[in-house]
């Protein structure tokens, strides 16, 4: 597989394989090949496959992209081309040493019954653009669809306006907050005939929803039957409690 070898002062810093996906080059951490130097634009250039060739394209960078000392906007790369980006050199080579594409692929990614697993070191190489500058987040490159409370900026709060429960205010820190008599409920109902779980407040993306789970629930005087989105200032009545919801 062709690759780009990043050099600075004749020192080899890293290399990046050029496969079917474009290699973005720039200062910003979301580039596949990150060059953290003020002379490099945030999104400086990219290299991609076009037919049987590999093309270098300057992305209107401030200081320009040079190949073999000539400024280029677009250039079809040849074996041994030296790309200059700021003070860094990138050497384009079609061969990874004497290895053919297949051999290199096998070495980089051991096959395990069809499914391959990347250990942390190899992940770092392949995701070099993703994790640069935030190494602890290598594993967190995949953003969960099910929201994690801390991942969202907004805070939901429940203020107890009327009724008998443990606290006068609850911060909705959990993904799911249960309201009921059960020990596991965060907002605890007291009394003989109260349901174990009357309702649940769930975080969904940026906001919160309330769903009746075994008790009567109303919001601003309207009975809730399914899932209902909560808006800041909503007054919730459930299990004898009156609760005010605030999103801040």
């Amino acid at each position: 597989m062709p690759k780009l070898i990043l050099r600075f002062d004749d020192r080899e810093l890293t290399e990046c394989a050029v496969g079917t996906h474009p290699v973005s080059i720039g200062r910003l951490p979301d580039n596949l090949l990150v060059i953290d130097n003020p002379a490099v634009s945030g999104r400086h250039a990219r290299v991609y496959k076009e037919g049987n060739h590999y093309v270098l394209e300057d992305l209107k960078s401030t200081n320009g992209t040079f190949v073999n000392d000539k400024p280029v906007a677009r250039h079809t790369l040849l074996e041994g081309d030296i790309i200059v980006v700021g003070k860094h050199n990138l050497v384009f080579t079609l061969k990874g040493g004497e290895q053919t594409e297949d051999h290199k692929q096998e070495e980089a990614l051991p096959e395990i019954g069809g499914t391959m697993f990347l250990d942390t070191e190899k992940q770092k190489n392949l995701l070099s653009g993703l994790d640069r500058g935030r190494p602890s987040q290598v594993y967190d490159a995949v953003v969960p669809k099910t929201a994690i409370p801390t991942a969202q900026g907004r805070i939901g709060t429940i203020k107890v306006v009327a009724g008998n429960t443990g606290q006068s205010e609850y911060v909705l820190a959990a993904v799911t907050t249960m309201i009921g008599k059960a020990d596991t409920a965060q907002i605890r109902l007291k009394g003989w005939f109260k349901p174990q779980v009357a309702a649940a407040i769930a975080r969904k993306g940026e906001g919160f929803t309330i769903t009746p789970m075994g008790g009567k629930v109303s919001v601003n005087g309207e009975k809730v039957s399914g899932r209902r989105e909560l808006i800041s200032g909503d007054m919730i009545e459930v299990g004898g409690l009156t609760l005010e919801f605030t999103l801040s």
Partner: protein
Amino acid sequence: MRLKVGAATSVGRVRPINEDAFLARPELGLFVVCDGMGGAAAGEVASQLAIETIAAHINGGTPPAGTQRGFQPRTALLGQAVESANRAIIARASGDAEHAGMGTTVVGMWLADGMASIAHVGDSRAYVSNQEGFEGLTADHSLVEAQVQAGLIDREQSLKSEQQNILLRALGRAPDVLVELGELLIAAGDQMLLCTDGLTRMVTDAELEAVLQRFRGDPQGACDHLIEQANNNGGPDNITAVVVEVQGTRLSGFFSRFKR
């Protein structure tokens, strides 16, 4: 909460053995799907070991008091069960050469009291079909998903990528696996699907949705049909599907808790 459950697994049309494994324990509300890999002959050992360890942990375990990492105690316990499965696989793999290098993906769902706790590692997935539509509940821990999230490729390209089989997380690879957790409120009529990539790479999300709709009330029929569809499309990998349907009203579910 009464559950109607279907489950099916197939070796597919190319692979010599089935390294997938599943667990369906409606009485516990626990469902797990694993896609084993690696080792001389150990992918199926890893997936089986994961399932047994998780079931034992849930069956004998006590949920922690209070929420953890912002998740309900039950969800936290499911996460711990998956972590213990990881340790069990590593312990077994380090014991003998035959099992060295084995690993597995996992997606587990534990349903109780109107809520589903979800835990996953790797590219086995969970979906829900409910009043609000059909939705994926898990984001694969795979290279292509990371590339999509980072904006390097779009979803369309990811489905054609040659790198789809590269995982970023799996059980059995490192002692401190990061288990992704989720929670979902469930109601009567909701359908949940757990499956391995042998299904999701051969059958599109739109088709999964259509099959769940068509086989509403017949989860076993849904599973059988999904497996058949994946095999008809080539069946290059092992295929596993578990479909769970929540039955009855919330009220009947509430009372059924006292009958156990």
